[in-house]
C-alpha cells in the first residue's frame, strides 16, 4: 500500500519534471541554447497563478494565467535577450541567463515579498479519492499526473503531426536548411521558447498549489530538470519523458524506502540518517551511471 502510494508520488513528481525538462530540451535541441532562467519562468507561472487566483477567486483562471504569463515572459525575454545569445558560446549563455535569474528573483521579491504564498485548491480538486485496492490518494496529485500525460501526448502530436513540429525537427537537424526553406527562424525560435516557458510556468503553478509559491522555487527544479535532460539525452522529448519518470521514481522511492532497507543491515537511528543522506544523492548516482554507460544520454543522438 505504501509502495503504491509512493509510486504514484514518484509518477506525479516525474510528470512535473517532464514539464520542466521538455521546454529545456526543446530549446537545447532547436536553438542550441542553455537556459538557466528556465526556473525563473517556472516561478513566474507560480506567482501568476497565485496572484490571479487570489484576485479572482478562481483557481482555473490562475492556471490559465500561469500559462499566459510564463509564455509572455518567455517571449519577451527571448526577443530582448536570448536571441542575441544563439550565436554566442555557452559561457555567455550561462552568464546572461544567470543574470536573468537574478533579475527575475529580485523582481519577484520586490513584487510579492519574501514570504511564501499558498494556493487554495477549489473543492472540485481537493480531497482524496479511493483507488482500486482501497488506497486513499489526493485527487489533485492524480490531476497533475493527468496533466503531465496530456502534455506528453500533446507534445508528441505537435512534434510529429503538425507543420510547426516539422519545422522544429528541421531546425534541430539543420539550422541553415530551415532558413533556406523560407521559414521565419526568428519567429519559430520565439514560439519554441515561449512554448517551453509556458510548460515551465504551468508546472510551477501546479507544484505551487501543492507546496508553496516563493522566490527561488525554480532553481532546485531546474537543476533536477538538467539531470533529466542529461539522462534522457539533449533534444529528445522522449528522453525527457523517460528521464523525468526515472528521476521522479528514483528520488521518491529512494527517500521512502532506503532508510527502511538500511535498517535491516544497521541499527535504526543511523539507518535513518545515513538512508536520508543516501537517498538525497541517489538521482545523481543514477546520472553518473548513465554518464559512464552512455555519455550522450539514453535517447541522445549527439555526443
Amino acid at each position: 500500500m505504501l509502495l503504491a502510494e509512493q509510486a504514484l508520488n514518484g509518477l506525479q513528481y516525474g510528470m512535473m519534471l517532464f514539464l520542466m525538462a521538455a521546454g529545456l530540451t526543446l530549446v537545447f535541441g532547436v536553438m542550441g541554447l542553455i537556459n538557466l532562467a528556465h526556473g525563473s519562468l517556472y516561478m513566474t507561472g507560480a506567482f501568476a497563478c497565485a496572484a490571479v487566483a487570489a484576485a479572482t477567486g478562481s483557481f482555473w483562471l490562475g492556471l490559465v494565467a500561469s500559462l499566459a504569463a510564463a509564455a509572455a515572459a518567455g517571449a519577451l525575454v527571448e526577443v530582448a535577450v536570448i536571441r542575441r545569445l544563439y550565436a554566442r558560446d555557452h559561457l555567455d549563455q550561462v552568464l546572461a541567463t544567470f543574470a536573468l535569474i537574478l533579475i527575475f528573483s529580485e523582481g519577484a521579491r520586490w513584487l510579492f515579498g519574501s514570504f511564501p504564498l499558498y494556493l487554495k485548491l477549489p473543492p472540485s480538486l481537493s480531497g482524496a479519492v479511493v483507488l482500486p485496492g482501497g488506497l486513499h490518494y489526493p485527487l489533485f496529485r492524480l490531476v497533475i499526473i493527468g496533466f503531465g500525460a496530456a502534455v506528453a501526448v500533446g507534445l508528441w502530436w505537435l512534434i510529429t503531426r503538425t507543420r510547426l513540429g516539422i519545422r522544429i525537427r528541421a531546425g534541430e537537424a539543420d539550422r541553415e536548411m530551415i532558413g533556406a526553406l523560407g521559414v521565419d527562424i526568428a519567429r519559430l525560435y520565439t514560439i519554441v521558447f515561449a512554448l517551453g516557458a509556458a510548460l515551465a510556468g504551468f508546472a510551477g503553478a501546479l507544484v505551487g498549489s501543492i507546496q508553496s509559491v516563493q522566490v527561488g522555487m525554480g532553481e532546485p527544479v531546474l537543476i533536477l530538470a538538467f539531470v533529466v535532460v542529461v539522462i534522457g539525452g539533449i533534444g529528445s522529448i522522449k528522453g525527457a519523458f523517460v528521464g523525468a519518470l526515472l528521476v521522479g521514481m528514483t528520488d521518491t522511492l529512494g527517500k521512502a524506502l532506503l532508510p527502511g532497507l538500511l535498517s535491516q543491515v544497521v541499527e535504526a537511528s543511523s539507518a535513518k540518517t545515513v538512508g536520508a543522506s543516501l537517498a538525497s544523492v541517489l538521482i545523481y548516482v543514477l546520472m553518473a551511471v548513465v554518464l559512464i554507460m552512455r555519455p550522450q544520454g539514453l535517447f541522445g543522438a549527439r555526443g
Partner: protein
Amino acid sequence: MGELLNRDAIINLVIFALLVAVALGAHLAGDGFTVTLATKAAIFGLAGVGLNLALGYGGLISFGHAAFFGIGGYVTGILASHASSGMPVVTLPFTIMGSNEMLGIWPVAMLAGGVAALAIGALSLRTSGVYFIMVTLAFAQMLYYFAISWSRYGGEDGLSFYVRNTFPGLNTFAPIQYFAICAVLLALALVFTAVVTQSRFGLALQAARQNSQRAVAVGIRPYAIRLTAFVLSGMIVGLAGSLYADLNRFVSPAMLSWHMSGEIMVFVILGGVGRLCGPVAGAAIYILLEHVLGGISDYWQALLGLLLLGIVLFAPGGLIGIVTRRGRHA
C-alpha cells in the same frame, strides 16, 4: 606579444597592489570592517583564480565549483569543531583528530577539493558543451543536498566554530593579519597560475581549449590535460573555501549552492576570462557592488544582474577588457 604581456603584467600588479593598499589604508584608519571586506575580496579572488584555470585557460565551463569551495569550508569547519570538542573525526581505519592549525587544515582542504574534483571531473569530462555545464551543476547540487541531510554537522543550519583557527606567530583574529594570510595565499596562487599557464602543460591546456582535434593530432590527450587542470582548479578553490570558513567561523550548505557557483563564475567574468588577475578585480568589484548597491537598494542583485547582462552582451572582455580595449584574452 611581448609588449602586451608587459601591459598585462602591469595591470596585474596594479590590481593586486590596490587590494593591499585598500586593506592597509583601512587598517591605518582603524576601519576593521573594510579590512574584512578586502579579505573577503582576496578569498573570493582566490576562488576565482582557481576557477579561471579551468574556465579561462581550459575552456571548461564548470557551474559546479561551489562543490570544492564548500568542501574546503566543511573540512575546515569539521576539523575545527573536533579540535574544540576533542573527539576524533574518525577512528577507523586510523584515528584522525581535529585540528585548529591552519597549516594543518589547508592541505587537507586542498586534498579534499582535489579528490572531489578528480571524481566529478572524471565523470563530467566524458561530456562536453552544455552537458558539461549541467553535469557539473548537478554534482555540486548533490553535495549541497548531502550537506543539508548530514545532520551530524549541522545539516541545513550549518556548522559554527567559535574560534578562528591559528597560524604560528600571527594573531589570526586581528583583521589585518588575517588579510595578510589571505593576500599571501592569493599571491602564491597567482604566481602558480602564471607559471603553470606558461609551462608545457599550460600550452597543451590552452591548445586543447582552442582546437582539441589539433591537440590530439600532435599526440596530446585532452582528457588527461583537462582533468589535471580541473583537479588543480578544485584544489585552489578548496583552499579558498577553507579561508572563507575561517573568515566567518561558520560553514553552511550555502557554500555549496548553485548560487555560489554562479558567483565564483561572475568573479571571473566581471574581471575578464583567462586574465591572470581578472578574477581578483572581479571579486573586488563584486564586493564593492554588493556594498554600494546593497546600500542603495535591498534588491541590489537585480542591479548586478543588469550589469552582468550588459557585460555579457556588450563587453565580452570583462571590465579589464574595457580598460585594455581588447577582446577576450588568449
